[in-house]
């Protein structure tokens, strides 16, 4: 079919008189050089078992998605993507960005670097949005300049525990890996399991080896033996142990956590709430990459910043920063409900998907988990529990 394209010009001047914030807007994006989190998983045969990809793609798409909004208020939004190798140089990057007039920076960094960079720059006129570090510790820093669009470990754990409680699978065997990340994830799960009165029958540490002297901790069948449980929860951020765990447990039970059923901000197979369009747009942008939870978190971070610039009706950083933190921000993350940031810890409240490798099995909060003000706050640290470090 021949298409006669008529290129329409989108009219400017939306809020005549009120649109003070016209002009260029640059959003910072700070990543870690050669971030190991995004290496393609490679087994020794050099076959990739998970394609790598940089979540900066999500931020790029977020800006592009809202271009028509920025255009309407006379703003031209661009992304300043920078990388550095350590805390000192990352902090210097933030300072340079702020000097250049960038007041919102998306951080795509591991937790320890988020903490160091955010602490070092807490007095600067800048809002940092942590998009990829799930550690709850960062939410307890109570830094006024730090927001989070990555779901916290506790949010993911609460989602999973709500599901186990709903199914009445209450006896859990916990397997925990050697990494700090594994321990953080497991700690959040344990706290959540306690709140919902699940029975953690045992917690065992696995190791990656075939060393016969340590069979009890490196053999799937032995490490899952001598206990009675409904499910096995495994915290394994490296992924090499958990990959071989399903179908190899001593009892015929399901595996959840880092494999099997996993909790995340996003999964590509979710097909409600307009999520299909988001996944398809992302695949087109990235030539076929499937959107991950990290991509979703940088996407919603960029969208939140662009929205705040467009809707705060001011070019004063303080006003825009106030807007993004207020309940007036009602973001659409294609998860069926409006999203905004919790005032007590700067965490974006959001539904969590519980998914296998190719299907979303449940979306939390699950039916029946109620809250006095907002059911999304059944996921993660609630206001009365909040403690600042």
């Amino acid at each position, binding site marked *: 079919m021949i298409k006669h394209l008529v290129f329409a010009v989108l009219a400017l001047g939306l809020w005549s008189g009120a649109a003070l914030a016209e002009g260029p807007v640059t959003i910072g994006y700070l990543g870690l050089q050669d971030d190991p989190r995004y290496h393609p998983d490679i087994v020794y045969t050099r076959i990739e078992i998970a394609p790598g990809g940089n979540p900066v793609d999500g931020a790029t798409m977020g800006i592009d998605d809202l271009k*028509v909004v920025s255009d309407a208020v006379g703003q031209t939004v661009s992304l300043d993507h920078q990388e550095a190798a350590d805390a000192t140089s990352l902090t210097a990057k933030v300072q340079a960005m702020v000097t250049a007039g960038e007041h919102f920076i998306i951080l795509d960094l591991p937790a320890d670097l988020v903490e160091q960079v955010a602490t070092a720059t807490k007095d600067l006129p800048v809002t940092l949005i942590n998009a990829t570090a799930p550690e709850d510790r960062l939410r307890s820093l109570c830094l006024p300049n730090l927001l989070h669009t990555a779901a916290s470990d506790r949010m993911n754990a609460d989602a999973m525990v709500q599901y186990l409680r709903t199914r009445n699978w209450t006896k859990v065997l916990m397997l925990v890996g050697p990494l700090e990340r594994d321990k953080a994830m497991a700690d959040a799960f344990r706290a959540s399991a306690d709140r919902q009165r699940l029975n953690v029958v045992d917690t065992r540490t696995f190791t990656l080896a075939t060393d016969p002297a340590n069979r009890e901790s490196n053999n799937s069948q032995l490490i899952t033996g001598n206990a009675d449980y409904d499910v096995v929860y495994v915290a394994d951020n490296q992924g090499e142990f958990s990959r071989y765990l399903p179908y190899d447990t001593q009892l015929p039970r399901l595996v959840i956590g880092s494999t099997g059923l996993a909790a995340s901000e996003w999964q590509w197979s979710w097909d409600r709430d307009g999520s299909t369009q988001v996944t398809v747009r992302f695949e087109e942008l990235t030539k076929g990459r499937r959107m991950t939870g990290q991509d979703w978190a940088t996407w919603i971070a960029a969208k939140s910043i662009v929205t705040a610039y467009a809707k705060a009706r001011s070019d004063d950083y303080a006003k825009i920063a106030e807007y993004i933190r207020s309940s007036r921000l009602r973001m659409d993350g294609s998860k069926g409900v409006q999203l905004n940031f919790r005032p007590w810890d700067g965490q974006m409240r959001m539904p969590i998907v519980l998914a296998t490798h190719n299907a979303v099995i449940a979306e939390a909060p699950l039916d029946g988990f109620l809250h006095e003000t907002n059911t999304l706050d059944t996921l993660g640290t609630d206001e009365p529990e909040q403690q600042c470090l």
Partner: protein
Amino acid sequence: MKRLAILAAVAFATAISVLPAWAAGTGMIFVSTEKGNEVVVLDQDHNIVKRIETSRRPRDMHFNADKSLLYVACGDDDVIDVIDVATLEVVDHIPTGPSPEVFAFSPDEKQILVSNEEDSRLEVIDMESRLSVQDIPTGAEPEGVIVSKDGKTAYVTSEVADMVHVVDTATGAVTKNILVGTRPRRFILTPDGSELWVSCELSSEIYIIDTATNEIKGDSLIFVPPGFREEDVTPVGLAITKDGSKVLLSLGRANHVAIIDAKSHDVLQYVLVGKRAWSVDLSSDETKAYVANGLSDDITIIDMASMKPEISIPIGRVPHSVVIDD
């Protein structure tokens, strides 16, 4: 079973031809099912007469003026299917851009204006030549489309940009962008054409736009049934009575339809329907309203006199829209 259905359809068609009282229409109910890839046809007694196989992901539906043809936007095959209402067969396909969702006719029915969800365009298709004569860029995920009675102005929502684009149909130019609530979905125009109502799914609001100035009129409206919270309300479908007195609004995840006084904006009744109430339509005599319930795979029929749900009827996978041939 299939033969029975065909027999019923034949009997029905015969009945239509002998009963002059039905001359205005068959009274049949048409429901598109997004995941069933079919338009389900029910008779006045709510018996399923036929499941018409369509292109994939049928969504919005409209009759032509004399109701001889039913047009169905099929999102996964990039076509609008055309169903012959007399024979209940798909007789034609009109190609569109990627992922057509909602569409409207120009008043003279010479053009179809369709929102193409995946390439962010409002496409204008000439009905005779089947050519795309205008392709108007919108914000991402355009959805609701409506054309003013004089045909001069089209309105389209962008779900991602939180905007209503005002389009001059003569030039295809966007003449104004009106920023509304989060994820704007569908429209109605009041019968006098003075007000455009827009449902904003994720901010739970209804915006009313004054079509004379294309400015937002007053505060946004929020309708929360008893026992629900504002964030549980995700309004989508809209319908209005011919006298412009009552508006029906489906509340999505709140599983209710609000019947609203169009002048005072007071809620006359919240009607409990199925899960994720979506599109809503009225019969021509306005005695019944029909609601597609996307997540309980059924439709609910509301009696407008008592403003109570009358019956819910199982339909198929993910009902999207309901229209009535009467």
